[in-house]
């Protein structure tokens, strides 16, 4: 039982780290640009497809990863310049419609380019296999690598946001956009950087997850909504909130699915507990969101909504 708990906890943390990569860009785009981007999940999917293509072309996961990054920059910039840039001054409703259209376009394009059958990405040689954890328990090296890579990116983001000039502008932009613009900062450039950074992070999450999941057209959807929940829980515009929110959501989601039925079994008879556990487990994250919002409408680290 204890082993299972540790295992699932690690799985939760691994999912949380990926969710953070996705939610970080989303929360910055919301917080600084005040743009709601439904197409953020698409970027995660595109990242996975890009690495699948490049890894297949070069025969190496690492080259795939390396080539994926500049491609992600291009995709992000392209979307920003062609569509998102024109939405800054628009209502949220317009933003919802345009990015909803973008989701449709991107999903179909991916289907046209890569087909409907799922792709797989081979796991890099040096990260395959598993390591002993405690007692008889072993854990896949790759998943540990994903956790470490995610934490490294989070640390890097922390340094950039808190200790560089561009980070200062980001924080200032999230607090008061008008004021930053009035002080002579090229807000268009700042926005383009923020959006592209977010796009690259989402693509990176998709690329990292590609060797453990099958790469298919539906992968962006479930993640998008979870990332929304993370942003809402963490507070819009807060990187720290996105990090803690992502871990919280992922761990609750993972552990709830496994241990929810166990806990219920102590209250109900096994059949009812099983049934109820299955129904409740996928709703747990949203119940968590509801509870947190009830206490703090602006999220854990948000300013006023």
């Amino acid at each position: 039982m204890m082993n299972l708990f540790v295992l699932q906890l690690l799985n939760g943390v691994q999912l949380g780290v990926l969710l953070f990569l996705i939610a970080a860009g989303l929360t910055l785009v919301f917080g600084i640009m005040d743009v709601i981007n439904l197409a953020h999940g698409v970027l995660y999917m595109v990242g996975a497809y890009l690495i699948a293509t490049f890894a297949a072309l070069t025969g190496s996961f690492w080259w795939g990863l390396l080539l994926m990054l500049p491609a992600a920059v291009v995709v992000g910039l392209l979307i920003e310049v062609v569509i998102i840039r024109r939405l800054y001054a628009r209502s949220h409703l317009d933003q919802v419609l345009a990015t909803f259209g973008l989701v449709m376009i991107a999903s179909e394009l991916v289907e046209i380019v890569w087909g409907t059958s799922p792709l797989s990405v081979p796991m890099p040689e040096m990260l395959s296999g598993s390591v002993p954890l405690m007692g008889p328990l072993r854990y896949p090296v790759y998943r540990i690598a994903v956790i470490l890579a995610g934490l490294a990116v989070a640390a890097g983001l922390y340094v950039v946001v808190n200790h560089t000039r561009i980070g200062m502008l980001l924080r200032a932009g999230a607090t008061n956009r008008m004021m930053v613009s009035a002080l002579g900062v090229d807000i268009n450039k700042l926005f383009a950087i923020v959006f592209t950074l977010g796009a690259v992070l989402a693509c990176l999450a998709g690329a990292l997850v590609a060797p453990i999941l099958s790469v298919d057209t539906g992968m962006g959807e479930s993640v998008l909504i979870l990332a929304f929940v993370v942003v809402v829980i963490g507070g819009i515009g807060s990187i720290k909130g996105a990090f803690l929110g992502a871990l919280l959501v992922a761990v609750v989601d993972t552990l709830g699915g496994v241990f929810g039925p166990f806990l219920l079994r102590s209250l109900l008879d096994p059949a009812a507990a099983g049934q109820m556990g299955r129904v409740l487990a996928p709703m747990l994250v949203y119940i968590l969101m509801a509870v947190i919002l009830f206490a703090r409408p602006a999220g854990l680290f948000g300013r006023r909504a």
Partner: protein
Amino acid sequence: MMSDAPAMRPAPRTPALAGRVKAALVLFVLFALMPPLASALNDPFYVLIGTRILAYAIAAMALDLILGFGALVSFGHAAYLGFGAYAVAILSSYGIDDLFLQIAAGIVMSAGFALITGAISLRTQGVYFIMITLAFGQMAFFFFISLSAYGGDDGYSLSQRSGVLGTDLLGSDYGLYYTTLALLIAVFVLCNRIVNSRFGRVFTGIRENRTRMEAVGYAPFRFQLTAFVISACLTSVAGVLLANQAQFVSPAFMSWHRSGELIVMVVLGGVGTLTGGIVGAVVALLLEEWLGMLTHHWPLLFGTFLVLMVLFSPRGITGLIERLGIGRGRR
């Protein structure tokens, strides 16, 4: 003839109101004439598509009630379609197949869910509200996916359509079509009355200037929550009808894409016009059917259409439609 309809309203008439009712009447007459035309063309399939369009028109109008008149962009309204649809599935599995009982059950479920989630969502505004309603919609979606007693992900087939007061009115496609049309008209009359009532004016006032309405002494939260619940209940009526139209119920009714499509319909037809929801449902669903015939990859074209509309019509899609003179009768 136009002036009879508004006569029952206590609120003073304005040209825009008369325009709205006039536009709606034209639409309703056209809808009523459609089935005989379809049977003359010997293509009764149109009647089923027509039913689907009318049902979505109800949902879009219900959404417009809060989106257009209250600027509450709910991205979770497909959940209420699902509640209506599953009310049919669940009640009929217990042998209760009366349409009105099923509508009542859908309304009760929707009201409960909307009351709880609305109370939480309405504590926030703007982007937060959109994301939270989306998340709650998804929560309902997952609930029905894991509800294995009613087929879970695979859905649940209905052996027959609902009865109406013991008769098999909905057994024929025409009966279902005209019942749906009657309900659409009823929902329009109700929404129109709500919008013109004191309640509706306060609700619209909150959209225009929340602070001022608070200063005048109204509590925005209560008005918004009431409107949110009403809108949810009306949307579930559309769900009951859609379940009957397809004789099939599945969580796909509640996916977030469906919520997005409802918003698209409202905006296509014109926000805050009520009849816009009807026009939008017709335009969006016919466009889907048409593009679907052209290519298997129709979402690519539909998505491009959406993006171009938003980008190149200065006041959004509504502005373009207005310029073309379709979305008449704006407030």
